[in-house]
């Protein structure tokens, strides 16, 4: 498979998140599964690091945090929206 995201950091976030999306559904009905919980926690830490690095360089992924109001600019609407990935 070719690399699908132009941005390697976004590719990393996408891959980690996709795994977490599947794990979440498993955990909903297997909330006591120690192995799945440990896997989810591990991915959560990796994701937090990747998201922090991405947001520092390219702007916020969510509008709750990291919108950099301090610099006098509402960064949420800067840069392309996800469907404009071209």
């Amino acid at each position, binding site marked *: 498979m070719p690399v699908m995201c132009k941005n390697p950091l976004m590719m990393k976030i996408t891959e980690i998140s996709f795994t977490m999306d599947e794990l979440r559904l498993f955990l909903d*009905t297997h909330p006591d599964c120690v192995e799945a919980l440990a896997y989810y926690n591990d991915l959560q830490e990796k994701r937090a690091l990747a998201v922090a690095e991405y947001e520092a360089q390219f702007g916020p992924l969510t509008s709750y945090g990291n919108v950099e109001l301090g610099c006098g600019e509402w960064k949420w609407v800067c840069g392309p929206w996800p469907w404009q*990935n*071209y």
Partner: protein
Amino acid sequence: MWSYEKRLQYPVNITTTNPKLAMVIMSQLGGPDGEKAAAGRYLSQRYGMPYAEVAGLLTDIGTEEMAHEEMIAAIVHQLTRNLTAEQIEGTPFANYYVDHTLGIYPQAASGMPFTATYFQSKGDPLTDLHEDLAADGTIL
């Protein structure tokens, strides 16, 4: 409450427009087995689900279906972006263009607009889960 992440669940990078293909793919957004129907189905049915684990599952699946809506809409958008009326004339996308130009509107490939009659919510967990299997089970 939902919170939005400024990214697609899976990347969509289409470089070549294709209005004929867009006309087919849009059914996965607003058609009878589309993502909008799936999101509406799971997020409506969860209120009748007495088991916390399954109510959570319906919430999380319904949420993911909304992310699928966004991906399909992105595909249709990128397949048709910047097309002129001349480029669309004579393609199956022409009738859609009459009503929506290059806007994204949830409808089936047949032209049928999205309707909540595509799904059910009966307040009975087993009935609803059977409906989920019929609707989504074959295309998992």
